[in-house]
Protein backbone atom coordinates (compact mmCIF):
# COMPACT_ATOMS: atom_id res chain seq x y z
CA UNK A 1 0.00 0.00 0.00
CA UNK A 2 2.85 2.37 0.88
CA UNK A 3 4.40 1.65 -2.51
CA UNK A 4 1.10 2.53 -4.11
CA UNK A 5 0.95 5.82 -2.19
CA UNK A 6 4.59 6.66 -2.96
CA UNK A 7 4.11 5.83 -6.60
CA UNK A 8 1.04 8.06 -6.87
CA UNK A 9 1.87 10.67 -4.24
CA UNK A 10 0.98 13.69 -6.37
CA UNK A 11 -2.42 12.26 -7.25
CA UNK A 12 -3.10 11.26 -3.65
CA UNK A 13 -2.08 14.70 -2.43
CA UNK A 14 -4.53 16.31 -4.85
CA UNK A 15 -7.22 13.88 -3.73
CA UNK A 16 -6.58 14.63 -0.04
CA UNK A 17 -6.75 18.39 -0.66
CA UNK A 18 -10.01 17.91 -2.59
CA UNK A 19 -11.46 15.74 0.20
CA UNK A 20 -10.48 18.28 2.88
CA UNK A 21 -12.02 21.11 0.86
CA UNK A 22 -15.17 19.06 0.35
CA UNK A 23 -15.46 18.35 4.09
CA UNK A 24 -15.05 22.04 4.96
CA UNK A 25 -17.67 23.05 2.40
CA UNK A 26 -20.27 20.51 3.48
CA UNK A 27 -19.77 21.54 7.10
CA UNK A 28 -20.13 25.20 6.16
CA UNK A 29 -23.30 24.58 4.16
CA UNK A 30 -24.70 21.85 6.40
CA UNK A 31 -28.06 23.63 6.72
CA UNK A 32 -28.41 24.36 3.01
CA UNK A 33 -29.70 21.20 1.36
CA UNK A 34 -29.64 22.61 -2.16
CA UNK A 35 -25.97 23.48 -1.80
CA UNK A 36 -25.19 20.08 -0.26
CA UNK A 37 -26.77 18.28 -3.22
CA UNK A 38 -24.81 20.51 -5.58
CA UNK A 39 -21.56 19.82 -3.71
CA UNK A 40 -22.27 16.07 -3.77
CA UNK A 41 -22.71 16.19 -7.54
CA UNK A 42 -19.58 18.27 -8.08
CA UNK A 43 -17.59 16.07 -5.68
CA UNK A 44 -18.65 12.83 -7.40
CA UNK A 45 -17.94 14.23 -10.87
CA UNK A 46 -14.54 15.51 -9.72
CA UNK A 47 -13.63 12.07 -8.41
CA UNK A 48 -14.50 10.47 -11.75
CA UNK A 49 -12.34 13.04 -13.57
CA UNK A 50 -9.50 12.55 -11.06
CA UNK A 51 -9.55 8.77 -11.56
CA UNK A 52 -9.67 8.95 -15.35
CA UNK A 53 -6.86 11.52 -15.53
CA UNK A 54 -4.72 9.49 -13.13
CA UNK A 55 -5.00 6.33 -15.24
CA UNK A 56 -4.60 8.31 -18.46
CA UNK A 57 -1.31 9.81 -17.24
CA UNK A 58 -0.08 6.38 -16.19
CA UNK A 59 -1.13 4.89 -19.54
CA UNK A 60 -3.38 2.40 -17.79
CA UNK A 61 -6.76 3.70 -18.87
CA UNK A 62 -9.15 1.03 -20.11
CA UNK A 63 -12.86 1.04 -20.77
CA UNK A 64 -13.43 -1.05 -17.64
CA UNK A 65 -11.57 1.43 -15.47
CA UNK A 66 -13.62 4.31 -16.86
CA UNK A 67 -16.83 2.36 -16.09
CA UNK A 68 -15.49 1.64 -12.61
CA UNK A 69 -14.93 5.32 -11.79
CA UNK A 70 -18.24 6.36 -13.33
CA UNK A 71 -20.12 3.72 -11.32
CA UNK A 72 -18.24 4.52 -8.15
CA UNK A 73 -18.92 8.24 -8.60
CA UNK A 74 -22.58 7.45 -9.19
CA UNK A 75 -22.69 5.30 -6.04
CA UNK A 76 -21.17 8.11 -3.97
CA UNK A 77 -23.65 10.65 -5.34
CA UNK A 78 -26.63 8.34 -4.72
CA UNK A 79 -25.52 7.65 -1.14
CA UNK A 80 -25.56 11.42 -0.52
CA UNK A 81 -28.68 12.15 -2.54
CA UNK A 82 -30.82 9.44 -0.95
CA UNK A 83 -30.27 11.15 2.43
CA UNK A 84 -30.40 14.76 1.25
CA UNK A 85 -33.53 14.43 -0.86
CA UNK A 86 -35.73 13.79 2.21
Amino acid sequence: MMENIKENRVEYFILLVAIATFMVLIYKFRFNKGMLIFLSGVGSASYIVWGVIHHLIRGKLTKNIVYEYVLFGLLVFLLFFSVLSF
Partner: protein
Amino acid sequence: MFDHNKSRDENSNVIKYWRKHPKSIEKYQFVYHFLPREDKKKRADLLDNKAILIYCVLIVFVSVVFRFVPKFAPGVLGYASNITISDLLKYTNQKRKENGVPPLKLNAELSAAAEKKAQDMFKDGYWAHVAPDGTEPWDFILDEGYDYIYAGENLAKNFSNSKEVVEAWFKSPSHKSNLIGANYDEVGFAVVNGVMDGYETTLVVQMFGRPRQPSMLATVGDEKGLPGENKASAEGIEPASESLGESVSSPEQENSQETPSSEVGKEEYLAEGSYLVQSNANPAIDITTATKTVSLAFGIFVSVLLALDIIYSRKKGIRKFTGLTLAHFMVLVVVIISIWLVFKPGLVI
Protein backbone atom coordinates in the same frame (compact mmCIF):
# COMPACT_ATOMS: atom_id res chain seq x y z
CA MET B 1 16.08 -30.89 3.49
CA PHE B 2 13.22 -30.07 1.11
CA ASP B 3 12.11 -33.04 -0.96
CA HIS B 4 10.88 -31.56 -4.21
CA ASN B 5 9.55 -34.84 -5.62
CA LYS B 6 7.58 -35.59 -2.46
CA SER B 7 5.96 -32.16 -2.52
CA ARG B 8 5.02 -32.57 -6.19
CA ASP B 9 3.45 -35.95 -5.49
CA GLU B 10 1.40 -34.49 -2.67
CA ASN B 11 0.15 -31.65 -4.87
CA SER B 12 -0.65 -34.10 -7.59
CA ASN B 13 -2.67 -36.20 -5.17
CA VAL B 14 -4.56 -33.14 -3.96
CA ILE B 15 -5.39 -32.13 -7.53
CA LYS B 16 -6.54 -35.66 -8.33
CA TYR B 17 -8.76 -35.58 -5.27
CA TRP B 18 -10.26 -32.24 -6.30
CA ARG B 19 -10.96 -33.52 -9.80
CA LYS B 20 -12.66 -36.56 -8.35
CA HIS B 21 -14.63 -34.56 -5.77
CA PRO B 22 -15.26 -31.11 -7.28
CA LYS B 23 -17.88 -30.30 -4.65
CA SER B 24 -15.16 -30.33 -1.99
CA ILE B 25 -13.65 -27.10 -3.34
CA GLU B 26 -16.76 -25.53 -4.87
CA LYS B 27 -18.12 -24.88 -1.42
CA TYR B 28 -15.14 -22.58 -0.72
CA GLN B 29 -15.62 -20.54 -3.90
CA PHE B 30 -17.97 -18.14 -2.11
CA VAL B 31 -14.94 -16.46 -0.50
CA TYR B 32 -14.23 -14.85 -3.87
CA HIS B 33 -17.43 -12.85 -3.43
CA PHE B 34 -15.54 -11.05 -0.66
CA LEU B 35 -11.85 -11.46 -1.54
CA PRO B 36 -9.82 -10.51 -4.62
CA ARG B 37 -8.95 -13.22 -7.19
CA GLU B 38 -5.30 -13.76 -7.87
CA ASP B 39 -5.94 -15.86 -10.98
CA LYS B 40 -8.18 -13.27 -12.67
CA LYS B 41 -6.36 -10.23 -11.28
CA LYS B 42 -9.60 -8.62 -10.19
CA ARG B 43 -11.40 -7.51 -7.07
CA ALA B 44 -13.98 -9.51 -5.14
CA ASP B 45 -17.13 -10.36 -7.12
CA LEU B 46 -19.14 -8.05 -4.86
CA LEU B 47 -16.93 -5.13 -5.91
CA ASP B 48 -16.98 -5.57 -9.67
CA ASN B 49 -18.76 -3.10 -11.92
CA LYS B 50 -21.94 -5.15 -12.14
CA ALA B 51 -22.21 -5.34 -8.35
CA ILE B 52 -21.70 -1.55 -7.97
CA LEU B 53 -24.39 -0.99 -10.60
CA ILE B 54 -26.75 -3.25 -8.65
CA TYR B 55 -26.09 -1.26 -5.44
CA CYS B 56 -26.92 1.96 -7.31
CA VAL B 57 -30.17 0.46 -8.60
CA LEU B 58 -31.09 -0.79 -5.12
CA ILE B 59 -30.47 2.65 -3.57
CA VAL B 60 -32.68 4.28 -6.20
CA PHE B 61 -35.34 1.62 -5.64
CA VAL B 62 -35.40 2.20 -1.85
CA SER B 63 -35.61 5.98 -2.38
CA VAL B 64 -38.53 5.52 -4.76
CA VAL B 65 -40.29 3.30 -2.19
CA PHE B 66 -39.82 6.03 0.46
CA ARG B 67 -41.38 8.49 -2.00
CA PHE B 68 -44.39 6.29 -2.77
CA VAL B 69 -45.21 5.02 0.73
CA PRO B 70 -46.70 8.40 1.85
CA LYS B 71 -49.09 8.33 -1.12
CA PHE B 72 -50.60 5.01 0.02
CA ALA B 73 -50.09 5.32 3.78
CA PRO B 74 -49.90 9.00 4.76
CA GLY B 75 -48.25 9.64 8.12
CA VAL B 76 -46.44 6.28 8.34
CA LEU B 77 -43.17 7.88 7.32
CA GLY B 78 -42.19 11.13 8.93
CA TYR B 79 -39.71 13.23 10.84
CA ALA B 80 -39.43 12.44 14.55
CA SER B 81 -39.03 15.59 16.59
CA ASN B 82 -38.76 16.92 20.10
CA ILE B 83 -39.14 20.69 19.86
CA THR B 84 -40.30 22.96 22.63
CA ILE B 85 -41.25 26.60 22.54
CA SER B 86 -39.28 27.28 25.71
CA ASP B 87 -36.11 25.96 24.05
CA LEU B 88 -36.80 27.92 20.87
CA LEU B 89 -37.14 31.09 22.95
CA LYS B 90 -34.07 30.22 25.00
CA TYR B 91 -31.83 29.63 21.97
CA THR B 92 -33.23 32.67 20.14
CA ASN B 93 -32.45 34.92 23.09
CA GLN B 94 -29.04 33.29 23.47
CA LYS B 95 -28.23 34.31 19.91
CA ARG B 96 -29.51 37.82 20.53
CA LYS B 97 -27.43 38.10 23.71
CA GLU B 98 -24.32 36.90 21.87
CA ASN B 99 -24.92 39.61 19.29
CA GLY B 100 -25.60 42.37 21.82
CA VAL B 101 -29.32 42.63 21.14
CA PRO B 102 -31.93 42.74 23.95
CA PRO B 103 -33.90 39.50 24.46
CA LEU B 104 -37.37 39.06 23.00
CA LYS B 105 -40.47 38.59 25.12
CA LEU B 106 -42.95 35.90 24.32
CA ASN B 107 -46.20 37.42 23.10
CA ALA B 108 -49.54 35.62 23.12
CA GLU B 109 -50.96 37.32 20.00
CA LEU B 110 -47.86 36.56 17.95
CA SER B 111 -47.92 32.96 19.14
CA ALA B 112 -51.61 32.71 18.22
CA ALA B 113 -50.84 34.12 14.77
CA ALA B 114 -47.96 31.64 14.37
CA GLU B 115 -50.23 28.76 15.39
CA LYS B 116 -52.86 29.78 12.84
CA LYS B 117 -50.23 30.13 10.13
CA ALA B 118 -48.94 26.61 10.86
CA GLN B 119 -52.44 25.16 10.82
CA ASP B 120 -53.20 26.98 7.58
CA MET B 121 -50.09 25.47 5.95
CA PHE B 122 -51.17 21.96 6.97
CA LYS B 123 -54.78 22.59 5.90
CA ASP B 124 -53.91 23.96 2.45
CA GLY B 125 -50.75 21.88 2.00
CA TYR B 126 -48.27 24.65 1.30
CA TRP B 127 -44.85 25.55 2.64
CA ALA B 128 -44.30 29.25 2.02
CA HIS B 129 -44.52 32.68 3.59
CA VAL B 130 -47.46 33.58 1.35
CA ALA B 131 -50.45 31.21 1.15
CA PRO B 132 -51.78 30.09 -2.26
CA ASP B 133 -54.79 32.38 -1.76
CA GLY B 134 -52.45 35.35 -1.25
CA THR B 135 -52.72 35.52 2.54
CA GLU B 136 -49.53 37.01 3.95
CA PRO B 137 -47.95 36.45 7.38
CA TRP B 138 -49.02 39.97 8.39
CA ASP B 139 -52.67 39.02 7.85
CA PHE B 140 -52.38 36.35 10.57
CA ILE B 141 -50.72 38.84 12.92
CA LEU B 142 -53.29 41.54 12.31
CA ASP B 143 -56.14 39.04 12.65
CA GLU B 144 -54.96 38.42 16.20
CA GLY B 145 -55.23 42.16 16.87
CA TYR B 146 -51.50 42.77 17.11
CA ASP B 147 -50.88 46.27 15.79
CA TYR B 148 -47.23 46.50 14.87
CA ILE B 149 -44.56 48.82 13.55
CA TYR B 150 -42.26 45.99 12.48
CA ALA B 151 -43.04 42.34 11.91
CA GLY B 152 -41.19 39.32 10.56
CA GLU B 153 -41.60 35.59 10.08
CA ASN B 154 -39.25 32.60 10.04
CA LEU B 155 -40.40 29.10 9.10
CA ALA B 156 -38.80 25.69 9.67
CA LYS B 157 -39.86 22.09 9.10
CA ASN B 158 -38.56 18.52 9.49
CA PHE B 159 -36.11 19.39 12.30
CA SER B 160 -35.56 16.99 15.16
CA ASN B 161 -34.86 19.44 17.98
CA SER B 162 -35.13 23.11 18.96
CA LYS B 163 -31.41 23.87 18.84
CA GLU B 164 -31.07 22.69 15.25
CA VAL B 165 -33.99 24.93 14.25
CA VAL B 166 -32.40 28.05 15.73
CA GLU B 167 -28.97 27.06 14.40
CA ALA B 168 -30.40 26.69 10.91
CA TRP B 169 -32.08 30.08 11.10
CA PHE B 170 -28.88 31.70 12.38
CA LYS B 171 -26.84 30.11 9.58
CA SER B 172 -28.97 31.71 6.87
CA PRO B 173 -28.13 35.42 6.47
CA SER B 174 -31.68 36.39 5.61
CA HIS B 175 -33.27 34.59 8.59
CA LYS B 176 -30.48 35.73 10.87
CA SER B 177 -31.44 39.36 10.34
CA ASN B 178 -34.86 38.52 11.79
CA LEU B 179 -33.48 36.45 14.63
CA ILE B 180 -31.13 39.16 15.90
CA GLY B 181 -33.10 42.10 14.50
CA ALA B 182 -32.99 45.11 16.83
CA ASN B 183 -36.35 46.30 15.53
CA TYR B 184 -38.22 43.56 17.36
CA ASP B 185 -39.26 43.45 20.99
CA GLU B 186 -41.52 40.43 20.97
CA VAL B 187 -41.78 36.99 19.46
CA GLY B 188 -44.38 34.26 19.10
CA PHE B 189 -43.84 30.60 18.30
CA ALA B 190 -45.94 27.71 17.09
CA VAL B 191 -44.74 24.12 16.96
CA VAL B 192 -47.39 22.05 15.24
CA ASN B 193 -47.40 18.41 14.16
CA GLY B 194 -49.27 17.23 11.11
CA VAL B 195 -49.02 15.44 7.79
CA MET B 196 -47.56 17.37 4.84
CA ASP B 197 -47.02 15.73 1.45
CA GLY B 198 -47.80 12.40 3.12
CA TYR B 199 -45.00 12.69 5.70
CA GLU B 200 -45.70 13.31 9.37
CA THR B 201 -43.70 16.35 10.31
CA THR B 202 -43.39 19.32 12.64
CA LEU B 203 -43.75 22.87 11.40
CA VAL B 204 -42.16 25.66 13.40
CA VAL B 205 -43.40 29.21 12.88
CA GLN B 206 -41.61 32.13 14.50
CA MET B 207 -43.23 35.56 14.29
CA PHE B 208 -41.52 38.75 15.37
CA GLY B 209 -43.04 42.10 16.16
CA ARG B 210 -42.69 45.51 17.69
CA PRO B 211 -46.05 46.85 18.84
CA ARG B 212 -47.20 50.24 17.74
CA GLN B 213 -48.06 51.17 21.31
CA PRO B 214 -45.48 50.43 24.03
CA SER B 215 -48.30 49.55 26.42
CA MET B 216 -48.93 46.48 24.30
CA LEU B 217 -45.58 45.01 25.24
CA ALA B 218 -45.92 41.62 26.88
CA THR B 219 -45.49 41.38 30.62
CA VAL B 220 -45.12 38.49 32.97
CA GLY B 221 -48.86 38.71 33.54
CA ASP B 222 -49.51 38.18 29.84
CA GLU B 223 -47.69 34.87 30.04
CA LYS B 224 -49.79 33.43 32.83
CA GLY B 225 -50.84 30.58 30.57
CA LEU B 226 -47.29 29.36 30.10
CA PRO B 227 -46.19 26.08 31.60
CA GLY B 228 -43.37 26.34 34.15
CA GLU B 229 -40.42 26.01 31.79
CA ASN B 230 -41.87 28.42 29.26
CA LYS B 231 -42.66 30.97 31.93
CA ALA B 232 -39.07 31.02 33.11
CA SER B 233 -37.78 31.71 29.63
CA ALA B 234 -40.44 34.28 28.94
CA GLU B 235 -39.50 36.23 32.00
CA GLY B 236 -36.05 36.72 30.53
CA ILE B 237 -34.10 34.21 32.62
CA GLU B 238 -31.03 33.65 30.54
CA PRO B 239 -29.62 30.18 30.00
CA ALA B 240 -26.56 29.34 32.05
CA SER B 241 -24.39 28.19 29.16
CA GLU B 242 -23.43 29.79 25.89
CA SER B 243 -24.71 28.29 22.69
CA LEU B 244 -22.44 27.47 19.79
CA GLY B 245 -25.38 27.13 17.46
CA GLU B 246 -26.30 29.00 14.37
CA SER B 247 -29.63 29.98 12.92
CA VAL B 248 -31.45 31.18 9.81
CA SER B 249 -33.93 33.96 9.13
CA SER B 250 -35.54 35.86 6.30
CA PRO B 251 -36.44 39.46 7.05
CA GLU B 252 -39.91 40.41 6.02
CA GLN B 253 -40.70 43.69 7.68
CA GLU B 254 -43.83 45.58 7.00
CA ASN B 255 -45.66 48.59 8.40
CA SER B 256 -49.30 48.33 9.10
CA GLN B 257 -52.07 50.51 10.45
CA GLU B 258 -54.53 47.97 11.70
CA THR B 259 -56.64 47.98 14.80
CA PRO B 260 -55.10 47.29 18.21
CA SER B 261 -55.28 43.91 19.81
CA SER B 262 -58.30 42.49 21.56
CA GLU B 263 -57.72 41.59 25.18
CA VAL B 264 -60.71 39.21 25.16
CA GLY B 265 -59.34 37.28 22.21
CA LYS B 266 -55.95 37.01 23.84
CA GLU B 267 -57.36 35.64 27.07
CA GLU B 268 -59.43 33.09 25.24
CA TYR B 269 -56.39 32.01 23.33
CA LEU B 270 -54.26 31.72 26.43
CA ALA B 271 -56.97 29.64 27.99
CA GLU B 272 -56.68 27.18 25.13
CA GLY B 273 -52.91 27.15 25.44
CA SER B 274 -52.58 24.91 22.43
CA TYR B 275 -49.55 26.72 21.03
CA LEU B 276 -47.64 26.10 24.23
CA VAL B 277 -47.61 22.35 23.85
CA GLN B 278 -44.29 20.65 23.30
CA SER B 279 -44.04 18.87 19.98
CA ASN B 280 -43.14 15.20 19.94
CA ALA B 281 -43.73 13.85 16.46
CA ASN B 282 -43.42 10.07 16.50
CA PRO B 283 -44.07 8.60 13.07
CA ALA B 284 -44.01 4.81 12.67
CA ILE B 285 -40.82 5.16 10.64
CA ASP B 286 -38.51 8.14 11.01
CA ILE B 287 -37.54 8.96 7.43
CA THR B 288 -34.24 10.55 8.49
CA THR B 289 -33.14 7.43 10.35
CA ALA B 290 -34.39 5.17 7.54
CA THR B 291 -32.57 6.97 4.71
CA LYS B 292 -29.38 7.36 6.74
CA THR B 293 -29.46 3.66 7.67
CA VAL B 294 -29.85 2.57 4.04
CA SER B 295 -27.03 4.82 2.83
CA LEU B 296 -24.73 3.89 5.69
CA ALA B 297 -25.43 0.17 5.21
CA PHE B 298 -24.38 0.29 1.55
CA GLY B 299 -21.46 2.64 2.26
CA ILE B 300 -20.08 0.56 5.13
CA PHE B 301 -20.58 -2.73 3.23
CA VAL B 302 -18.60 -1.51 0.21
CA SER B 303 -15.96 0.09 2.45
CA VAL B 304 -15.40 -3.17 4.34
CA LEU B 305 -15.00 -5.04 1.05
CA LEU B 306 -12.50 -2.44 -0.17
CA ALA B 307 -10.57 -2.67 3.10
CA LEU B 308 -10.48 -6.49 2.76
CA ASP B 309 -9.27 -6.07 -0.81
CA ILE B 310 -6.43 -3.77 0.27
CA ILE B 311 -5.31 -6.04 3.14
CA TYR B 312 -5.64 -9.36 1.28
CA SER B 313 -4.02 -8.09 -1.92
CA ARG B 314 -1.05 -6.78 0.06
CA LYS B 315 -0.72 -10.02 2.00
CA LYS B 316 -0.85 -12.20 -1.12
CA GLY B 317 0.95 -9.75 -3.38
CA ILE B 318 -1.97 -9.63 -5.82
CA ARG B 319 -1.74 -6.99 -8.53
CA LYS B 320 -5.02 -6.13 -10.25
CA PHE B 321 -6.00 -4.26 -13.40
CA THR B 322 -8.49 -1.96 -11.66
CA GLY B 323 -8.86 1.57 -10.37
CA LEU B 324 -7.18 2.69 -7.14
CA THR B 325 -8.79 0.77 -4.29
CA LEU B 326 -7.32 3.00 -1.59
CA ALA B 327 -8.77 6.10 -3.28
CA HIS B 328 -12.23 4.48 -3.45
CA PHE B 329 -11.92 3.57 0.23
CA MET B 330 -10.91 7.12 1.24
CA VAL B 331 -13.83 8.64 -0.65
CA LEU B 332 -16.31 6.21 0.90
CA VAL B 333 -15.04 6.97 4.40
CA VAL B 334 -15.73 10.66 3.71
CA VAL B 335 -19.24 9.76 2.54
CA ILE B 336 -19.90 7.75 5.71
CA ILE B 337 -18.60 10.51 8.02
CA SER B 338 -20.65 13.14 6.19
CA ILE B 339 -23.87 11.16 6.34
CA TRP B 340 -23.35 10.10 9.93
CA LEU B 341 -22.16 13.33 11.51
CA VAL B 342 -22.89 16.30 9.29
CA PHE B 343 -26.15 15.79 7.47
CA LYS B 344 -29.20 16.93 9.45
CA PRO B 345 -32.81 16.96 8.38
CA GLY B 346 -34.73 20.21 8.20
CA LEU B 347 -35.56 23.08 5.91
CA VAL B 348 -35.96 26.77 6.62
CA ILE B 349 -37.57 29.51 4.57
